[in-house]
């Protein structure tokens, strides 16, 4: 727990998820505490439960789309009430805005996909800009020992990645993949 709360790298997403799950596990915990402590525990349980709703749709592949949207909607409704009550002492305004926008746009995406082609699935992993960062990862990898690059070599490396991708889509057997 101490390690989860004092990470060396505050950008560590897997660890953040681990912590949220650990907190979510606490929600059924029933122990005798003095009033101050039990108040803190209630707050922590609420947090754990709330954030669990936010991450479950993205980490549990067995959920159906309906369940995923239900989780997100639950998060948004509870967050909204808490934000209205406690304003920025509960949630930084920017973070509240970000989650609202993300969840709203996910709902729009589902409806847009339904109207466009209902036979095609909806995948939450396709939302967000994470895939672009993956592409950046490949750009860094191409540089090997010289990971950073200037403008011109950046353009070159991005083009190379796209060309290879196109070739490997046509000939999947040529691709060594990631090791």
């Amino acid at each position: 727990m101490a390690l989860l709360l004092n990470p060396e790298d505050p950008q560590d997403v897997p660890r953040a998820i681990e912590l949220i799950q650990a907190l979510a596990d606490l929600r059924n915990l029933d122990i005798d505490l003095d009033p101050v402590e039990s108040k803190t525990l209630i707050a922590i349980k609420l947090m754990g439960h709330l954030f669990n709703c936010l991450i479950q749709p993205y980490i549990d592949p067995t959920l159906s789309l309906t369940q995923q949207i239900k989780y997100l909607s639950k998060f948004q409704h509870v967050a909204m009430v808490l934000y209205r009550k406690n304003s920025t002492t509960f949630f930084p305004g920017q973070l509240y805005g970000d989650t609202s926008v993300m969840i709203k746009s996910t709902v729009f995406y589902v409806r847009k996909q339904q109207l466009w082609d209902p036979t095609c699935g909806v995948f939450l992993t396709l939302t967000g800009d994470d895939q672009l960062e993956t592409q950046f990862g490949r750009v860094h990898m191409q540089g090997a020992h010289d990971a950073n690059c200037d403008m011109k070599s950046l353009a070159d490396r991005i083009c190379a990645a796209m060309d290879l991708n196109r070739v490997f889509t046509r000939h999947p057997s040529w691709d060594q993949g990631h090791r």
Partner: protein
Amino acid sequence: MDQLVHTYHSKGVSRKVIAQKIVEAGAGLLRVCSYSDKEMDMATAIFRTGGRRLVYATHKGLNLPSINTIRSRTDITHLQPSVGTITHAEIHHNISEVFGKDHPAIPRCGHSIMTDEINLDERAVYLKFCQSVGGLCREHSKDHNLQINDYEAMEQLAETVHGPKPTVHYAKEATVIGIAPFRQDDYDVRPIVISGTCKTETALGSANMHQMVLDAWRTNPNGEARHGPIWSVASDGDGTRHRAFYLLFMKKPLDESDPLYDILSKLIGLNLAVGEFNVNGEFDIKHIIKHSYHYFFLSIKVNLYFHRYLHSHLYNWRNYYQ
């Protein structure tokens, strides 16, 4: 024979010369190469992993296509990084270059625009395609001539970058805007804008840049017409882009006559404000988790005593249930 006639005919050579070339080829004086798509793909892969020299070697040694051949068949993508301010022409060129090469079988679907920054080495580069200086920030290079025409102009430019009060800066990061489809198969993000930034851009500037990309995609024949519409624009939690996204994608309420309206309007509490053509802004879940982690679980005043307390209980409780 076909290949030979085709090649020389397209060069506009007279029939007499073509006939002569056929004779030469028959006598073994002229090498005629015709390549299968597979060989072209292999040469492209070789060029992109091993570089120009390896293509030369495989061309000479294994009769694979030469660098000029793969270039002329436009199998090599040429992305133009923007010189100074982003222009419509650059975006259109890049869309055609990047999205114009797909074999047409892929069905149209919704697309997402993604924006993020990547670190750059801070130095100027020579961009051959436009004879200009690249690697400077887009925010301040608007009023400067970046074309390399004469020595004085270059000295002046160097002065504005290196002088005691620089008005133009080297780009610290490159903003990359990519487009990706909403589908599971054949998924890849394809960048269409690469532009240097010194991180002083205003929300309005950022909004304009995204608007240009949206407009270009809608009007380019290799954009929406061929691949499908843009549904959303995604980004990380950058502060300037927050404001920019608000300007762009909270513009107007969803139209009541829109097919989206009937179901979405029934969802109580859902904010129905959208941008032009019903585009939504969105932020990445990973950034949100990072932020939450930072704000909540690290800055919140949870006392250490309670950590220990919880820890022991959590431990017991887990053991009990496992």
